[in-house]
C-alpha cells in the first residue's frame, strides 16, 4: 500500500477529482496548505506597502491506494493538475504499512477502497 500526497493549485481540484473518479479512485482527503516552491509568489500592495506573498495557497491531497492503483492515481493527478506553468505542484509517494477501517476493523488492502 502506498500513501500518495500531492500539492496542487486550488483551481485544479475539481479537474483532479474528476480524473481520479474516472479511474475509480473515490477516496481522498483534502487540506488547505500554503506552499513555497519554484513558483514565485505575487505581490499584493496594501495601503502602499508591499506584501510579498511567498507562501502560495495550495491544496494538499492525501490518497491511500493499493499498489496497482499508484500509477492511475499519479496519472489522474497529472491529468487534472498539469497546466505546464510553474506552480502546478508535486506528488510524493510513501509506503504505507497498514490501513484500518474504523467502522469495521477491516485491515489492509480491503480497508483502503
Amino acid at each position, binding site marked *: 500500500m502506498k500513501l500518495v500526497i500531492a500539492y496542487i493549485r486550488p483551481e485544479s481540484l*475539481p479537474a483532479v477529482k474528476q480524473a481520479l473518479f474516472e479511474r475509480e479512485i473515490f477516496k481522498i482527503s483534502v487540506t488547505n496548505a500554503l506552499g513555497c516552491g519554484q513558483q514565485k509568489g505575487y505581490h499584493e500592495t*496594501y495601503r502602499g506597502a508591499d506584501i510579498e506573498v511567498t507562501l502560495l495557497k495550495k*491544496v494538499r491531497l492525501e490518497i491511500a491506494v493499493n499498489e496497482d492503483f499508484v500509477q492511475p492515481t499519479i496519472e489522474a493527478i497529472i491529468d487534472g493538475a498539469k497546466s505546464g506553468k510553474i506552480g502546478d505542484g508535486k506528488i510524493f509517494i510513501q509506503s504505507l504499512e497498514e490501513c484500518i477501517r474504523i467502522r469495521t476493523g477491516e485491515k489492509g488492502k480491503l480497508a483502503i477502497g
Partner: protein
Amino acid sequence: MKKKKLYIKHLLLLLILGLLSGNLYAQDSTAAAANAANDAALTALSESLQNNLNIVWTCVAAFLVFFMQAGFAMVESGFTRAKNTVNIIMKNLMDFSIGSIAFFLVGFALMFGTTNGFFGTDSFAMAGSDVAGKDWDWTFLIFQTVFAGTAATIVSGAMAERTKFNAYLTYSVFICAFIYPVFGSWAWGSLFKGSGWLENLGFVDFAGSTVVHSVGGWLALAGAIILGPRIGKYDPEGNPKAIPGHNITIAALGVFILWFGWFGFNPGSTTFGDGDIGRIAVTTNLAAAAGAVLAMFTSWLMFKKPDASMALNGALAGLVAITAGCANVSPIGSLVIGAGAGMLVVISVTVLDSVFKIDDPVGAVSVHGVCGAFGTLMVGLLDVNSGLFYGGGLQLLGIQAIGVASGFVWAFGLGLILFVIIRKTVGLRVTEEEELRGLDIGEHGMEGYNGFQIFTTQ
C-alpha cells in the same frame, strides 16, 4: 456650530405685520384689514415652521436612504464568495461616490430641470440655487441624490464576481448622469421645475418601485445577460449549480439595514412632515414582513427546508413591491402586495436560474426588476381611491402597465446597448484565470479576509 439665534425670519414677518396693523388700527373701519394682516402673519408663520419641519424630516429620510448603500454592500458581499469581497465593496462605494457627483453635475438637471418634453435642460450643478442660503432646493437635491444612488447600486449584485472594475465605473457614470434621470423626469419631473408625460397620464409610483427599482433591476438583467454566467454556475448539461455566499450574517445585516433605510425611502417620499408618514411606515413594514414570511414558506415547500437567503430576499421583495403604492393602498392591501412579492421572488429566482440560465448571484433582477414591476401593477388593483378592487375600473391598471412597460423598454434597451459598448471598448469581463482566483487579488491586489483560512477549492 450655530448659536440658537432668534428666529429672525419669523420676527421679521411679525414686524411687517406690526407696522401694517399699527397703522391701520388707528381707524375703526380698518379693523377687518388688520385682521386680514393678522391671518396672513399666521399663514406665513405656519408655512415657515412647517417648511422647517419638512426639511428636517426630508433630510432625516435622505440619511436613512443613504444608509441603504451600506445595506446593499453587505447583502451583495454576503451573498457572493469571499474571494470577491473587496471588489464588490469597492463597486458599492464607487457607484455611490461617482454617482453622487454625476447626479449633482448633470443628472439632477436632466431629471428636474425645465423639460424639453423628453428631459430637463437647466439647473446643471444646481445653477440657480443659492449656495449660501436655506432654500428647499438643497434638501431636495440630497434626497434625490440618494435615490439615484440606490438605482445605481442595484446592478452590481447581478454582475458580481466577474465584471471588470473599470467597466463598472464607466457604467456608474451613465446610469446616474443619464439613464435614471431621464426616466425619472417622465414620472417625477414636476416635483421641481420639470414635468413628465408619465405623471401627466396619472401614473402612480409614489416612491419608485418602477422609477428606481425596476429601472435598476432591468439594467441588472441586461448586464447579467451580456456578461454570461460565472464559471462553474452551470454544469456541462446546463444544470444550475449553487455557488453559496460566504457570509449569511453580513447579508442578513444588510437586509435589516435596507429595511431600516426603507423607512426613509417610502415615508420620506412625502417630503412633508405629517400623519401620512406613519401610515406609510405601516404599509411598508407589513409588506416587508409578509414578503419575508411568504418567501420562507414558499422556499420550504419548494426545497424542503426554509432557505435563509430566500427569506432575506423575500423581505426585500416585499419592500420593493410596496414602494409604488405605499401611500395609496391600505394596510391589508400592503399585506397582499408583500405576500405576493414574497412568493414571486422565489419563483422568479428559480426560473431565471434554471429556465433562462441567467446568473444573478444576489437575485437583484428578481427582487428589484420583477417585484418592482409587480408592485407597480398592484397599485392598479389596490389603490384605495381608484384601484380596480375598489371600484376604480381598469384605467389606473392600464396606466400602471404603460409605466412598467416603458421602464422596461428604456432601462433594458439602453442597458443592452451600454454594456455591449463597454464590452467592445474597456472590456466587460475579467479573464478566466482572474475569475477563478478571485477579483480581489486580480483587480485590487488584496484580500478581504487576511489571515482567515478559506477553503481555496471553490
